[in-house]
């Protein structure tokens, strides 16, 4: 498993130089097995394993649209993957599905629904990823300020007024993006799932 959990010192700019995960592993609760998924020609190759890095118990191929629905479903327990991996998995699946569609031809409702789900999911995952990176960045800055205070370089920490002002500004920007999407789609803004929220803490 080449999962790259979001840890401190990982910024989006640094992340661009990393290679794409070769496979995405998730835990399928209903079956009670780990699934290692890899994009392949015309579908995804899937291995079932008893442990995340164990030997394959079985392997099979699933159509792109089914994999995309799987990856975007709430049932998929992403205990092993970082937010970044989840985002990349959905992106890889959506990309393969879009590429597989015959150019300019009729597209079935199943594919349309799967692509919309992927777009919804990507936005939620990106927001979760932003929150993790932002949280780590703030923790680093806080530690740096404490070090500077301890060493006498500066006299005090930033005021709470400044912190709350920047927080309000950030929340306002998020609300603006959310409303732009919801107005375009004629619906509400997707809320992050409880599953992805809990996974965030484990990442």
């Amino acid at each position: 498993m080449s999962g790259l959990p979001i840890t401190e010192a990982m910024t989006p700019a640094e992340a661009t130089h990393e290679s794409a995960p070769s496979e995405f592993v998730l835990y399928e609760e209903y079956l009670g097995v780990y699934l290692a998924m890899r994009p392949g020609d015309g579908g995804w190759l899937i291995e079932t394993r008893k442990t995340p890095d164990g030997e394959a118990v079985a392997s099979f191929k699933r159509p792109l649209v089914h994999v995309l629905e799987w990856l975007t479903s709430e049932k998929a327990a992403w205990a092993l993957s970082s937010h970044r991996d989840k985002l990349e998995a959905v992106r890889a699946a959506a990309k393969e599905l879009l590429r597989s569609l015959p150019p300019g031809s009729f597209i079935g409702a199943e594919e349309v629904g799967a692509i919309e789900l992927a777009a919804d999911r990507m936005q939620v995952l990106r927001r979760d990823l932003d929150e993790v990176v932002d949280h780590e960045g703030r923790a680093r800055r806080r530690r740096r300020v404490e070090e500077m205070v301890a060493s006498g370089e500066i006299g005090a920490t930033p005021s709470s007024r400044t912190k709350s002002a920047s927080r309000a500004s950030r929340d306002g920007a998020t609300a603006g993006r959310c409303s732009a999407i919801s107005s375009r789609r004629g619906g509400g803004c997707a809320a992050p799932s409880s599953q992805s929220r809990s996974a965030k803490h484990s990442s």
Partner: protein
Amino acid sequence: MERQAAIARHHRALELARRAALKTLEDVPLGDWPEVLETAAAMYTFTGLAREIEEAVEVRSAADVPLY
């Protein structure tokens, strides 16, 4: 004939939308994806067009069926 031409134009628009969505999905470097909202918007454009075509085809099919 007019309807067929309109659907053909729609199919061309659909193909352009598909390429645009694919491009946004492919172009962004790994792990650095602040443009995810734009990517999602391109995907919604594509699926919106696909639904419109589906509806147009259904309407045409319904018109072709004789009503007794």
